[in-house]
């Protein structure tokens, strides 16, 4: 995987998730950060820190990104959400426009 094709998402605790840029761009918020010209430092370093998203939620979000890519390619499986994560996940989804 070439470095420029990936991004690093960093959780509140500092846990790092390296994922495909294509997957991360499922989020409208991340897409804006990575693509807006001359703006965010995130675009330069390919790193985004989420001080309000915990690792367990960020992991779930990364899973969703990949699930979403597969879904739009025709593989319509079910995405499982643990009931205890739902509320927190929803707030993160709201922030990420996902």
């Amino acid at each position, binding site marked *: 995987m070439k470095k420029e094709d990936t991004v690093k998402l960093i959780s509140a605790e500092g846990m790092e998730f390296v994922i495909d840029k294509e997957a991360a761009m499922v989020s409208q918020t991340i897409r804006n950060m990575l693509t807006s010209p001359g703006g965010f430092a995130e675009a330069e370093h390919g790193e985004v820190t989420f001080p309000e998203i915990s690792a367990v939620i960020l992991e779930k*979000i990364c899973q*969703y990104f990949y699930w*979403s890519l597969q*879904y*739009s*390619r*025709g593989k*319509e499986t079910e*995405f499982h*959400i643990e*009931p205890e994560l*739902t*509320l927190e*996940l*929803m*707030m993160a*989804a*709201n922030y*990420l426009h*996902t």
Partner: protein
Amino acid sequence: MGGVCSRKRDQQVVEDGMRRGVSGRYGKSGSSKWLLTSFSRPMVVHQPGLANCPSLMELCIHKICEDINQYSSFTMLPKDISQQIFNKLVLSHLLTDVFLQKFRDCALEDVWLGEYPGVQDSWMDVISSQGTSLLSVDLSGSDVTDIGLGLLKECSSLQALTFNHCENISEIGLKHISGLTNLTSLSFKKSAAITAEGMCAFSSLINLEKLDLERCTGIHGGFVHIKGLSKLESLNIRCCKCITDLDLKAISGLNNLKELQISNSNVTDFGLSYLRGLHKLVMLNLEGCNVTAGCLDSISALVALAFLNVGRCGLTDDGCDKFSGLESLKVLNLAFNNITDACLVHLKGLTNLESLNLDSCKIGDEGLANLTGLSLLKSLELSDTEVGSSGLRHLSGLTHLETLNLSFTLVTDSGLKKLSGLTALKSLNLDARQITDAGLSALTSLTGLVHLDLFGARISDTGTNYLRCFKNLQSLEICGGGLTDAGVKNIKDLPSLTLLNLSQNCNLTNKSLELISGLNALVSLNVSNSNITNDGLPYLKPLKNLRSLSLESCKVTAAEIKKLQSTALPNLVSFRPE
């Protein structure tokens, strides 16, 4: 943030009757018009070939609705998120009085429970707990009483309040809303308990822009109370038989009125003279009023008028020369009047017209010659007139036409080639017995057609070959009796079809259902009066978007349809036999 963006206010500008055209057609269950009125809740139509991925937000909301018992309150959520959960529960009919409690103090902005089952006073406590966040409430059709309505007093930010046909609301309840001065929209359709005296409560609602009292029977004399509502732009008092000329006098000073609907009331030409000063009036609906062409004098003074409905007014040619002065008109409904070609002469100069409805007027081919200059016409309704083939040549230059209704006219196959250049046409109604395959063959250039109605036309299997030219068709009706399964083969390749009516073709068999099983955008299907049997039903399983299914007078039982509904067709809400 999302809450504000997702706000969708009721923005009906033109009354629906005018758009739809008023037609007394019957026996066509499964027509799109019927669908529009039957399903008040929005529906999701699956776009074939487009995998529409649910957002994570949608998945979470879905999950919460599934596990709703596990949550005691949503107050910790941002208000736009709890709003989305609330809306989803309403939409999926899962909201109960118990679940509603979880939304206490959630700062919801919209509570739209119109026609929702079970809504009563006991719900109002939680609804009013939204306090000053609450902006719009719809409790139409509920059992809420004056006491429940009173609880909304504290929600002082309210902008829109809808209490249509709430039988338990009386003039006493109305007093409670007199302090809601931020209201811009108020609707109490079909509320028999609203009286002239009760309307006194409206007098303080100085920000009111829209007032809807359609079908209220006791409001005569109450308009003196709204004289001061200078911001009022839209007033709907359709079908209020009690309304008379005197009431028009009371509203004559509402200078900001843009939209006034007084159809089916008791106003006369004299009453309309009170309206002459309404220089901002854009839309006037007088359908079914006891007026004559004499009222056109007053109407000519309405310089901004663009929409005029004088359908079913019993107009004759007498005095119709006054129409020539209404040059700003864009939409004119003259349907069901006793006017003849002599009246059409006076429409010649109305070159801004985009829509003209002449349904069931006594007009014929010669009259249409007066329409040739109306080059902006997009919609022309000629149903049930004496128009025949030779009149159609006058239409061939109207290249902006998108909607043309020639049902029950004298038009024959030979005339239809005059329409072949009208390539902007999206909707064409040729429901007439004398139309056959030959007529259809002349229309293959109309590739933009979205709606094609050949209800009573005598189309055979051969004729269906021409349908292949109409790849964009969303609705199709062929019920002339001449189709067999072989003809349905040509229909199965119309991927956008959402409405298909093939009833009265008694030779159709289960094979037809097999053929159309790939039309997965279908929302409404009617194959009544055919040889379909219970054995054919499984072919319908892939039609996940189907909401209406009619298989009347077939060898099909209600029990089998219900089985199909519960196992494969979750969206099916209406079916026959039932």
